């Protein structure tokens, strides 16, 4: 079998670390600390995916203004960006660890892929959206697994007999 015909379901990982919308910032940082990857699917009880949360999203808590307004302003001509305040200068109370939950900072604009798609399509999506991990879902958007660039490279190496 040629590598480029490999299906996502043959390569994806099924043991996915996920978080819930109600996961607190403190718990989330604990998970980030434990694992080397810092992009996690956010799922509900029925495993339906509702978002993704990445380490970059945690930076939103350093913005003193609502993120949805800053997102609107990003579309104005020659937007120079809004730098997050100097992390050392920001006055964040300790309660933020439990008051801020994943729902407040997650990205709901989620790129997903079907398990029947090929690894070539998965790689195209990764390049298009500049992602390294893509959640794999069924038609009802229930999370089935996750595919990463590492998984694809691993499969290619195995196919070629390198590993």
């Amino acid at each position, binding site marked *: 079998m040629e590598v480029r015909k490999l299906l996502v379901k043959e390569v994806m990982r099924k043991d996915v670390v996920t978080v819930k919308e109600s996961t607190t910032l403190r718990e989330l940082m604990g998970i980030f600390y434990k694992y080397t990857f810092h992009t996690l699917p956010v799922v509900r009880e029925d495993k339906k995916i509702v978002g993704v949360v990445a380490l970059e999203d945690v930076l939103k808590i350093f913005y003193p203004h609502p993120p949805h307004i800053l997102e609107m302003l990003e*579309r104005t001509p020659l937007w120079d960006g809004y730098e997050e305040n100097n992390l050392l200068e920001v006055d964040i109370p300790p309660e933020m660890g439990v008051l801020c939950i994943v729902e407040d900072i997650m990205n709901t604009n*989620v790129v997903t892929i079907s398990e029947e798609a090929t690894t070539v399509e998965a790689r195209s999506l990764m390049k*298009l959206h*500049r992602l390294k991990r893509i959640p794999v879902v069924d038609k009802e958007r229930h999370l089935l697994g996750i595919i990463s660039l590492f998984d694809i490279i691993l499969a290619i190496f195995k196919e070629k007999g390198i590993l």
Partner: protein
Amino acid sequence: MNPILAIGILVITGFFGGFIARRIKFPTISGYIIIGICLSLLNVIPKELVSGRLNVITDVALGIIAYMVGGSLNLKSLKKLGKNIISITPFEAGGAWLFVTLLIAAIGFFSVGFDFSNPNFSQVHLPMGIVIGAISCATAPAATIAIIHEYKAKGPLTTTLLGVVALDDAFAIIAYAIAISIVEALIISFKNISLFRTVINPLINIGGSILLGAALGFGLIYASRFAKTRHMLLVIVFGTILLCTGLTKILGISGLLANMAIGFIIVNKMKNNENMFGVIDDIEDVIFAMFFTLAGAHFDLGVMKVAGMLSLLIVVGRCSGKFVGARIGASISRAPIPVKKYLGFGLLPKAGVTVGLAILAKQHPAFSAVGGIMVSAILASVIINELIAPPLTKYAIFKAGEATTP
């Protein structure tokens, strides 16, 4: 001078203008515009080129601006804005529109003299007032954001200010489309054309633009499936904006509204739409450098005797309209007292969309005689605003007690 050399000069000199502006903590756009004005004063680029073959840059840049503004109108984000921002925006923008229109139409009729015979009130001053008023709705965020950032401002006034500024450009584009339709109706009504056509023409213009934009938006969603890389996506998105702008020119409808409708459809109807706007970010710097420098080059020192008075009327009308409108909107929505008292002071910067719409108005046949004066007056008012607005924004933030650093 050939157009390609002119574009090269615009981009390179504009780049250094933007660079210096950022160094002295001014918005990049202001740097482009001032360099453009210098090019005009030094007569570097021939006037016939600025107002002739280089117009294509204006059309493309405005298509991009409108598409991006449409993309800012995410219904989910709009719902989160809250009633204060939603209520205040139409009042402060409408206030600027009304006050500028009244001042230009009333005072301008007596104080702004033109060098052509019989400048008619209903065919010159009133249409000019209506269109410049609509253009005055826009607010530029760069200067405001810089001050908010500098003083680490935080609180209800700051949040409302950011929200209103975020909505203003969309409001200005819609206001401009309506204003141009009114002006066309005013002008054709003097040519003994039926009342039916006078009313139906604006509706066809606005409705047709939105329909075309929506159709192209859905078409773009479908076509984007074939893009496997960001480069391919850029080709499709940019191509659709050009297609839309070109079609609206053939059909005689609003390219701004149509491109805004494309952005609106994309942001609300397409999953994973961030790239659809992100790819435009990759090219907008070069296009806006040439566009805003070109806009500055439209400045004509020779008409400033007339345009100077007009620019003062624009500044006074816009400031008072924004201030009064914001106060009324804040009272109606029962916004906190600092918002009611000081919001108007923060809404004065203007640059990007204002300048774009001014150049577009100059190209409109209705303003063939006064277009140059209008643009010079608006450019002068932009410069005046860039100078007076930052201290006033700072005053508002400090008076509201929202600055956290001295």
